[in-house]
C-alpha cells in the first residue's frame, strides 16, 4: 500500500467536472476544497509505480491546472523490496 497526498489546482468554472474526473480514478479521495481553487486529495495504490501512473494521468485532466505531490509513504514497498532481496 502506497498512500500519497496532493494539492490539485483547478479552473474554478471546471471545478465539478474536475472533481468528477478525479474521483473516477480508483484510490482517489478528495478531502477538502481550499479557496475554491484547490482540492486536497489522497491517492491509495498498491505500488509506487501505480501511484505515479495514476498521478500522471490525473495531471492531464482538462481544467486541472496543476497537481503537486506533497506526501508519499511507501513503507510496504520498501519492506517488499527488502524481502525480495533476502
Amino acid at each position, binding site marked *: *500500500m502506497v*498512500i*500519497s*497526498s*496532493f*494539492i490539485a*489546482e483547478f*479552473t*474554478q468554472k471546471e471545478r465539478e467536472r474536475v472533481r468528477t474526473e478525479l474521483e473516477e480514478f480508483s484510490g482517489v*479521495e478528495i*478531502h*477538502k476544497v*481550499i*479557496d475554491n*481553487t*484547490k482540492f*486536497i*486529495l*489522497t491517492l*491509495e495504490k498498491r505500488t*509506487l*509505480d501505480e*501511484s*505515479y*501512473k495514476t*498521478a*500522471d494521468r490525473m*495531471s492531464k485532466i482538462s481544467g486541472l*491546472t*496543476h*497537481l*503537486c*505531490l*506533497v*506526501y*508519499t*509513504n*511507501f*513503507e510496504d514497498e*520498501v519492506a517488499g*523490496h*527488502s524481502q525480495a532481496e533476502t
Partner: protein
Amino acid sequence: MKVSRRSLLKASAVTAALAAAGCSKPVVRETEQMRAAAEGKLSVEPDEWKTGVCRYCGTGCGVQIGIKEGKVISVKGDPENRSSKGLNCIKGYYLGKVMYGKDRLTKPLIREDNNKKGTMEGFREASWEEALDLIADNLRKSHEKDPQSIAFWGSGQQTIHEGYISSKLWKAGLLNNNIDPNARLCMASAVTGFMSTFQSDEPMGCYEDLDKADVFVTWGANMAEMHPVLYSRLLHRKQTADHVKHYDLTTRYSRTSEAAEETLIFRPQTDLAIANGIIRYLIEHEAYDKTFVEEHCQFKAGTEDLGHSLEDDYDETEKGAAATESWNVSFQEFKQMVDPYTLDYVEEISGVPREQLEALAKEFADPDKKIMSTWTMGVNQHTRGTWMNNLIYNIHLLTGKISKPGSGPFSLTGQPSACGTAREVGVFSHRLPADLVVNNPDHRRFAEMIWNLPEGYLEDISEPGFHTVKMFRELANGKVNFLWSMSNNWGQTMPKANRYRGVDEDGKGVLDAFIVVSEVYPTRSTEMANVVLPAAMWVEREGMFGNAERRNAIFEKCTEPPGEAKWDLWALVQVAKRVLEGKKIGGQDAFDLLFGKGGTDIWDDKTGDLKADQTEVCRNVWEEYRKFSSPHLHESIDVQELGEKLKTKAKQLAPYDEYLKQHGICWPVREVNGEWMETKWRYADGTQEEGFDQIGVKEFGEQGKYDKLSFYKSDDKKPSVIFRPFEDAPEIPDDNYPFWLCTGRVLEHWHSGSMTRRVPELHRAVPEAFCEIHPEDAERLEISEGDWVKVKTVRGETKVKATLNGRGKPPKGYLFVPFFAEETLINETTLDAYCPISKQPDYKKCAAKLEKA
C-alpha cells in the same frame, strides 16, 4: 471508531497537504483519527524525519525524508523550506527509488583493456586503495610532465562541499585552472550576463515574485516540464488574479505555451532582434522610466561581428579575444544603435506578427505593471547567450522593473546546485569563491589570505584555464591526458559527441587519455573511463545545494550507500593526500595546510582518514568557505580591509547549522538582533525582516535613491544597458540541410536519464527518444507516426522514431529531439560552437536533414 493503519496514513497525508496549502486546521475525521491514534499508541510515523532537498532540477524543493530501520520509507514536501513551501512535482515519487536501481556501481572498476574503451567491457573490480593509488599516480605524472595536461570536470550536481574541495584541490593544491563544471553547458551565459550587466552573479529577485507579478514573460523556458513547481505558482497567480497575462516566447509550441495568453513563435536566433525591437519601441514612445535610467543606468556597446567558435583556436583569434570588450556610450548613441529594430523589421526576420510584438512591448511600457521574465536553456544555450541575457536586463532596466516584489528578470537554473556549487564556490575555470575571479590580483590575494597561502602563491593561476568545450577539444587533441569527471555524463551530453567519444579522427586523444569517472550508475561516460569510482548519491551522504533563488539548503545523510560506494568528497581528499604527499607550501606540509589542521580541518591524523563525522566535515568546509563572504569576522585586519574593498560581504552567508534550523536561507544573510535573516530582493532598500537588502544597501550602496534601489555591486553603482545586435546562427538551414534541429529535455527524465531511466514507471512513461516533426513536413517526406527516421547533420546521424503529435508542436522546418536516451545519441549531430563570452555551446539550433530510415 476503528482506526486502521491505512486511515492513519491518510490522516498524515492530508495533514501534510493542508500544511503545504497554508491551511493548518485538519478536517474533522482526520482530527478524530489522530486523537484515536494518540490514545491507542498506533503510529505510522517513521522513526525519524530528516531534512533534505530534492536532487533534480534547480528549483530546490525542500523535502522531509522519513527513515525507518535505516531505510527511506516516506517523503513529504517540507513546508518550512521557503522555496517550495511543501510542494513537490510528481518526480518526487521517485526520489527514494532512484537510489535503488539494480545496476548501482558498488565497487571501483579499473580498465584492463583499453581497446574496449567506449564500452563497459574490459574492466575488472578493484579495491579502493588500488584505484586511488592508480589515479594519484597518473595525476601526479601528468601534472609533472605538463601542468596543462590535467583537467577536472565538475557539476551543478556536486554538493557545495564537494565543489569547494574540488576547486581548492585543483586551484590551490595543483595550481591549475583546468577545472570547469557541466554548468558551463547550462547556465554560463546567465553568469556572464549577470557579471557584464551588474558585476555580480545571480538573480536579484526570488520565487515570491511569481506570486505578485502582473505579467509573465517566458523566454526560451518550458517551465511546465522543467520547473513544474514554479510553474504551478505561476498558474496559481493567474488563477487568483484575472488580469495576469503570460507571454511565451519560444521556437516550438510546448506545454508551457498551452496556458499562455500569447505564444510568440520565432525563427531560431531572432530573439536577439525581438528584444531589441522592444527596446526600440520603449525609447521611441518615451515609455521607459527616465528617472530610473538617469539615476541607475549607464550605457555601453561591445565588440560586434564576433563570428563563430567553430575552430579550436577561436578564443585566440582577434574576434574571439575581443569578445568581452565593452565601452561606455551615450544614451543618444545607444538610441541610434537600436534604431534599425523597428517592429516591422523584427517581424520580417523573426516571423512573429507585429501585433504580438507590440502587445508585449506595451506591457513593458505600462509603468503600473509588474513584470517577471524567466528563462533557461533557450536563452543560455545560444551562440549569443550572454547578449540575450544582457538584452533581457536592458528591457527591465529601461523600465525600472527590477529588484521589486513581482518585477524582475529571473534566470532559472537546470541543476540542483548550479548556483550554490558551480557558480558560488568557484568551480569555473575563471573563478574563485564569492564572485572572485582568477585574473584579478586582489581577488587572488584575498583567496591566498583565506587559504593561508604565501603572498603571490596563486600567481600561477592568473589566467583562466580550459572552459568545458576547450577542455574536451584538448582532450580530443591529446593535450589533456588526465581527466576526472564527477556527477555528470559528458559521454552523452557533450555536443559533437563523436569527437569527444574518440570516434572522429580529431578525437583520438580521448582514447589515449587516462580518464576517471565518479558515478552512481554505468553511463556513456563510464564507458570512456580508465577508472570508475562508485559514488554515494543524494542522501547517502550529507550535503548542501544552492538553488536558483540563492537559497542554500542542507540535506542530511539518511541511509548508507550500497556496497563500497563512497562519498565523492572522501575520494577527492584521498587523492589529494596522495598527490600532495611530500609537497610543501611556504615550508609547511601542503596537504595539512590545505585540508588538515592548518586549513579546512577535515582530516583526522589519528585514523589517517577523512574525519568520520560527515556533519563536522561539512561544517568545517562551509565555515572556511564562509570566510570569503564574511571578511569582517576574520582575525586579520588585512582580510577585513581587502574584503571590504572587494565587497565580498555582498554574498554574506550564515553559520552552517543555521541552514538546518531554517530549512534553507537565501544569501546575502544578515545577522539582525541575533537572528540570521535572508534577502529576497537584492539592491532594494527596506527592512531586512521583510526580505529587503537593508544591510547591503546601507553598507555598500546609497540610501534614498530613486525607487529605493542601489545597485551597489555595479561599477559606479550603475548597471550597464549594453547594446547587443542581432547576429545570425553559425548554421542556418539550406537546401541540403533544410531543418532547424533543437534538443532538450522531457518532464519524466532528468538530463541524460541515468537516474530516471532506472525507475521502471518513468522509463515506461517515455521509454525512448523521439523526433517531433511538423505533420506537413512528415507528409511531404512520407513519414508516419512511429516511423524510424534518420536525423543527419554534417557531424553525424542519429536514428530515432518520428512523432507527429507529441506534446511539443514544432513549426514547419523544425525538429526537436530529447537527449535523455543513451541509445539515441542525438549529440552526435549537434554543434559545439559556443557563445564567445560565456563559452556555453548552443544545443538549440543547427542545420539538419531528415530521412526515412
